[in-house]
C-alpha cells in the first residue's frame, strides 16, 4: 500500500497501462516536459520518451481527432483535454465523430481511446475553467463516462478505461487532485459501470459523484448525529450507469437525493431521477430531490463560488428538511 494523491494516482495509472501495452500513448498540451498543467503526468515523458508522450499545439480538435484516427488504426491513445470546459472546442470530434462511428459503420470501427480531463470547480478559476461537464458526455450515445472520487479508483478505473474497447471520457475532479488515499501495490484494475456504496443507512439514499462524494459522506455523518441514517452511493460511472445498486438502495430507504456539482438543468441527477421515478415509483416514500449548483455560470470570487457548490451542510439541510 502506498499513500498517493489523486494527482499522483493519475500518473500511476497511466504508467501501469503504458508499461503493459506499448500501443498506449499520451497526447495533450503540456503533458510532456511540463508534466501536465495539474502535474498529473509528471515523469511520464522521462519514462516513455517523446514518441509516446507527446506535447501538442493548442488545438483540441487536432488532439481529439488524432486520438480517434490513431485508435481506429491500432493504437490506444490517452488524450488530455486540460480543462473539461475545453470539450466545447472539440465537441464535434467527441460527440459527432468518436461517439457515433462504431454505430454508423455497423461495428467495423473500434475506438479504444480515453480522454482525460480536469473537471469541476472550487479553484476560483471562473466560469470557463470550472465546469463539471460529465453530463454533457452522458447525453451522447456511444460514450462511456467515468468520474472517480478516490486515488485508488483513479488508478483502477483509468486502467479499466484504457483496456476498454470503447471511447471513455475520464473526468478528474480538479478539487480532488490534492486529496490522498491508500492505493494497493501492484496492478490495480477496476470495472466500469459499478457504483460503490460508501456508507449504509436505512433512511435515505444519497447518490453523489466525484468531489460530491466526500461532501455527501460529511452530510451523512452530520445527519447520523441527529438519528437520520443515510446510504451514500458513489456512482463512479455515468455510462454504464449502475441503476441496480441505486434501485436496491431506494427500495430499502424510500428516499432518493442526488448531489451534483453541475448546474441543474439536464444534469445526470435528472436522468437518474427519471429512471427511478419510472422504475422504482412504488418504492418511493416521498419526492426525489436534487441538490445541484444553481443554474448559473460559476462565479470566480471565493465567497460566491463557495456559496454555489453544494456543501455538506446544504446536503444535510436538504435531506433533513425533506424527510423530516
Amino acid at each position, binding site marked *: 500500500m502506498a499513500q498517493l494523491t489523486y494527482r499522483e494516482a493519475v500518473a500511476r495509472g497511466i504508467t501501469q497501462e503504458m508499461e503493459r501495452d506499448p500501443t498506449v500513448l499520451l497526447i495533450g498540451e503540456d503533458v510532456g516536459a511540463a508534466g501536465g498543467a495539474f502535474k498529473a503526468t509528471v515523469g511520464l515523458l522521462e519514462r516513455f520518451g517523446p514518441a509516446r508522450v507527446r506535447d501538442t499545439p493548442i488545438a483540441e480538435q487536432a488532439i481529439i*481527432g488524432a*486520438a480517434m484516427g490513431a485508435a481506429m488504426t491500432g493504437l490506444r491513445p490517452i488524450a488530455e483535454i486540460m480543462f473539461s470546459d475545453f470539450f466545447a472546442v472539440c465537441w464535434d470530434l467527441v460527440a459527432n465523430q468518436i461517439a457515433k462511428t462504431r454505430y454508423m459503420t455497423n461495428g467495423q470501427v473500434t475506438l479504444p481511446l480515453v480522454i482525460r480531463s480536469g473537471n469541476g470547480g472550487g479553484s476560483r478559476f471562473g466560469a470557463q475553467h470550472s465546469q463539471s461537464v460529465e453530463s454533457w458526455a452522458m447525453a451522447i450515445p456511444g460514450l462511456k463516462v467515468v468520474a472517480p472520487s478516490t486515488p485508488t479508483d483513479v488508478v483502477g478505473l483509468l486502467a479499466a478505461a484504457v483496456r476498454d474497447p470503447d471511447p471513455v471520457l475520464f473526468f478528474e475532479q480538479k478539487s480532488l487532485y490534492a486529496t490522498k488515499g491508500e492505493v494497493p501495490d501492484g496492478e490495480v484494475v477496476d470495472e466500469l459501470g*459499478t457504483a460503490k456504496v460508501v456508507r449504509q443507512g436505512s433512511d435515505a439514499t444519497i447518490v453523489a459523484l466525484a468531489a460530491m462524494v466526500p461532501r455527501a459522506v460529511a452530510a451523512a455523518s452530520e445527519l447520523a448525529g441527529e438519528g437520520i441514517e443515510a446510504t451514500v452511493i458513489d456512482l463512479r460511472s455515468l455510462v*454504464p450507469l449502475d441503476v441496480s445498486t441505486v434501485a436496491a438502495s431506494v427500495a430499502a430507504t424510500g428516499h432518493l437525493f442526488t448531489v451534483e456539482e453541475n448546474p441543474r438543468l439536464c444534469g445526470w441527477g435528472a436522468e437518474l431521477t427519471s429512471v427511478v421515478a419510472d422504475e422504482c415509483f412504488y418504492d418511493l416514500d416521498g419526492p426525489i430531490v436534487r441538490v445541484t449548483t444553481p443554474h448559473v455560470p460559476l462565479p470566480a470570487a471565493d465567497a460566491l463560488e463557495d456559496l454555489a457548490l453544494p456543501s455538506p451542510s446544504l446536503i444535510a439541510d436538504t435531506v433533513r428538511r425533506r424527510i423530516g
Partner: protein
Amino acid sequence: MRTDPSVGLETRLALYETMYRIRTFEKRAYDLFLSGLVKGTSHLSLGQEAIAAGFGEAMREDDWSFATYRGHAHALARRVPMAAIMGELMGRACGLMAGKGGSMHLTSVEHHMMGSYAIVGAHLPIAAGAALTAQQLGTGQVAVCFFGDGATNIGAFHEALNLAAVWRLPVVFVCENNLYMEYTPIAAVTAVPRPAADRASAYGLEPIVVDGNDADVVLETAARVLDRARSGEGPSLVEALTYRHGGHSRADPGKYRPDDEVATWLARDPVLRYRERLLDGGLEAGVIEGVERAVDDAVAEATEAARSSPPPDPDLLYRDVFADGGASWRN
C-alpha cells in the same frame, strides 16, 4: 496532350476503368434517387472522378482513405463492392453498413476505406491520427484525406495541417476544389484565390495545384506526395482543380452556376478526355468498350442485388453502439 511514358498501359486502363465505374455507378445512383429508391441525401462526384481514380491507383493497398459525404467515388476507387455501396444508399440489409450509416458515411475497413465524414473538416485531424499510427508502428502506411474547397476555411483544417506538419506525419491532404461549397462559390468567402494551395506556406508546405480532371496528372502527383510521406518527409497539401457536373446534393439542380462556366468544365470531362487520350495513344476502341461493358454489367448487377435486398433487421437499431455489440447504457 500529356502522355507520361512512365505510366504503362495497364495502369491507364485501370484508371479509365475506375473513372468509368464511378461515372456509371453514380449516374445509376442518380436515377435511383429520382425513382425514390435512394432516400435521404446523396452527393455525387460526377466530373470529379479523376481524383479518386488517380489517388486510388497510386496508393498502396494498405494506405488509408478518408473521405467526405461526397465519398462514393473514393469507396469505389478502393474497390469496395458496388452492391454494398448501392445497398447502403438504398438503406438495405446488404448495405456496406447495413443501412446504419447511409450515403454520407461509407466505410469499409477491409478495403482501408476508413470512413466518409459528414461534418466539414472533421476528418482532417482523424486522418492525421491514422498517420500517427503508421509513424508510431513504422508500418509505412500513408493516410490520404480528401475534402472540398469549403473545408479550407474551417478550424479543423488549420489544426490538422499544423499538427501533421509539426509531427511530420505521413498524411496527404487532398483538396478537391470544385469551385463551390453547397451553393456559394468558394471565391466569395475565401481570402485567397487558391483556398488550399495559398494556405500551404502557413504550415511550411509546398503549394501544389494540379489539374484534377487529368487522371495522369493526379496519378503522378499522388505518387510523388505518397512517396514523400512514406519516406518520412511529412505531409503534403494538394489542391486538385475540378468541377461537379451536377448540383451539390440530391436536392440541388446546380442552377446558380453560369452557363459558360458549366460548358467550359463539361468540355474538360475527365472520363471522356481520358478515353480520347487512350484512343489517341493507339488503344483499340474494342478494348475500351470491353472495359465499359464489364462495368455496365457489374453496375446493373449491383443495382439488382441492392434492389432485391430486404430492409435491415430491426434489431440492428440496438446493435453496435458499444463494442460488446449492444446499446446498453446501464448495468
